[in-house]
């Protein structure tokens, strides 16, 4: 009985699913996605996922049917390749539908946990920042001494001559290539 029911469901889905349009001449495949069945997020999500190997353009009506046209980046696809692509994209659509349904079902749980976690007491309580950031007189005079020492060291360091570079290796890329 359960098997018969499953078959009936599959048949019904097949009836409502529109056949993808193959344009072997242009090397493109167009799938009209019924948004009542799949939802806009799932349709857009599936289209996005295949942009690594395909140029994807969208058309149609956001409320009813999203028209997704795929053109393989690898070059003009044969009819057989486009048929295979159609089956692959259908699998992406069906999976995207499941993913989005799981997400929608559990959105309140995820948001609730995220909110509570954001305000939960940290495991290790860090001590409060002291307000006073001033140095003591002793520390300040030590810093002043250090600054004077470093200033004279910098002056001495800048006396050093350049390393010879007969092959122009240290010339920047910009100097060599930009006129």
């Amino acid at each position: 009985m359960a098997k018969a029911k499953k078959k009936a469901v599959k048949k019904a889905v097949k009836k409502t699913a529109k056949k993808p349009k193959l344009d072997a001449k242009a090397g493109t495949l167009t799938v009209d996605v019924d948004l009542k069945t799949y939802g806009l997020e799932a349709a857009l999500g599936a289209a996005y996922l295949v942009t690594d190997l395909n140029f994807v353009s969208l058309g149609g009506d956001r409320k009813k049917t999203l028209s997704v046209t795929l053109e393989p980046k690898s070059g003009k696809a044969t009819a057989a390749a486009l048929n295979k692509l159609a089956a692959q994209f259908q699998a992406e659509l069906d999976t995207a539908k499941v993913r989005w349904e799981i997400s929608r079902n559990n959105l309140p749980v995820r948001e609730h946990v995220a909110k509570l976690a954001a305000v939960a007491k940290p495991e290790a309580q860090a001590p409060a920042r002291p307000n006073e950031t001033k140095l003591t007189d002793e520390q300040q005079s030590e810093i002043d001494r250090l600054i004077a020492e470093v200033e004279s060291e910098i002056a001495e360091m800048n006396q050093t001559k350049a390393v010879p570079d007969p092959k122009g290796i240290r010339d920047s890329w910009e100097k060599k290539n930009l006129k």
Partner: protein
Amino acid sequence: MSRLSTLPRDIEPKLSQLGALNFRDMGGWFLISNDWGHWLMLEPADFKRVMSGAVKEGEPLYTELAQRGFLRERTDFDALVKTEARRTQFRRFTGPSLHMIVVTLRCNLACHYCHSSVVDPTRTDTDMDLETAKRTVDFIFDTPNETICIEFQGGEPLLNWPVVKFVTEYAQAKAKGTGRRLIVTLVSNFNLMDEEKLDWLIDHHVSICTSLDGPAVVHEANRPRLGGGASHAAVIKWLRYIQKRVQEQPERGYYLPGALMTTTRASLAHGPEIVDVYDSLGMDQVFLRPLSPIGYAKRVWHDIGYSPAEFLKFYEDTLDYIVDLNTSGKSTIMERFSTVLLTKIVKGEDPGFMDLRSPAGAVLGCIAYNYDGNIFVSDEGRMVAHQGDPVFKVGHVRDPWESVASHPTTRALALASTMDSQPQCMHCAHKPFCGFDPVFHYEMQDSMTGRLPSSPWCEIRMGLLDIMFKKLRDPKTRAVFDAWLTRDECRWAESDAHEPGTPIQETAA
């Protein structure tokens, strides 16, 4: 077809029972995970039962699912909140802890993959001056994080040695005066190191890290000296010497030096040799890092670059070699990227790795200060500016911290790198363990939000996480990973008994 898995055709999903989860076909088994970092490995038959709502109360699988938050009717909110709070503690925005100060752009090397926009050693106009250095430290101490790590970068920081010393001493004085915890670290190519500088660094507890790309044949191919000449020998010499000093004087409590490698095309055929070099030096870990095509690396990518698939093969083969060394007892050397990922996967903690956070650590966790006082979201962001695009500049050390924190670029990066807003990441089973870098994607794909399906960043991280989960299924490898996790200490962990302002002393391994 896409890099996210599709549901097997023979599954009729029944979703009313299911809590929030993402799934991934791992080839022969399935991984499910949720926002809170919980995960399960399922055989295909069990995965089918889970997705079709066929798992019944009383079954062991039901208990496993319930304990991990995968069943709506058994959601333990208290437990999930605790897990999430620990996992995402960095989101409380306590301010950046890592402050990268570029004290000079001058360098004595000409590394092919440099993304520091280096110039030749005569260009003292690219040295940070004293006034800017002081303002930089003042700005750093205005940021709110209780812990401050200052990391000297360049160019080669030793070329502006006076400012390195000044910043260290000034920061240590301020840390003492304000009760802040301070770590100071120096990244150097070691080719300008000498006894006097080393003595000073040891006396002032500045930890040192260098670059070591492996055996000389790889290192010299990647990192030649400016004007020609070898750079590898100096690195080996000073690594050995500093280790000797540390081991001979344990009472000084000084740090063992660290080293990082960068993977280029020259590295791909030398994985085991790279590991052997690190092991022979007694280093406790090697970090198999992929190269980002930013800066000079972008210009020569056709010479030194590789595809994500090539890197992943190199990584997995080399990791297998490292695991074999551990299981055979020949070495206990760890692989760093693994321990970072495993900290997230197995321990459910944040390892403090800025590139693997959601949102990313740019400004929120780390900041880069250029020699001229300009502030950037990261060192890569600074490189983009050097190429003429200042989009990642978020202020100057004259500005108040609040203006940097609330800068439009800071906000844009936080938004772009929040993985729940990325159409591919949000449904990826690796989401809780992964991260997104807006600067990388801006450079590679002309977009801060990127195009994840064609992103090499995504392909590599997805591949690395696939490798990690596959390795976790092997009991011998799992035992090695567990041993690494117990040894690994986060650099930012601190002991309780620590006097404010004094340098933190990590245990020499």
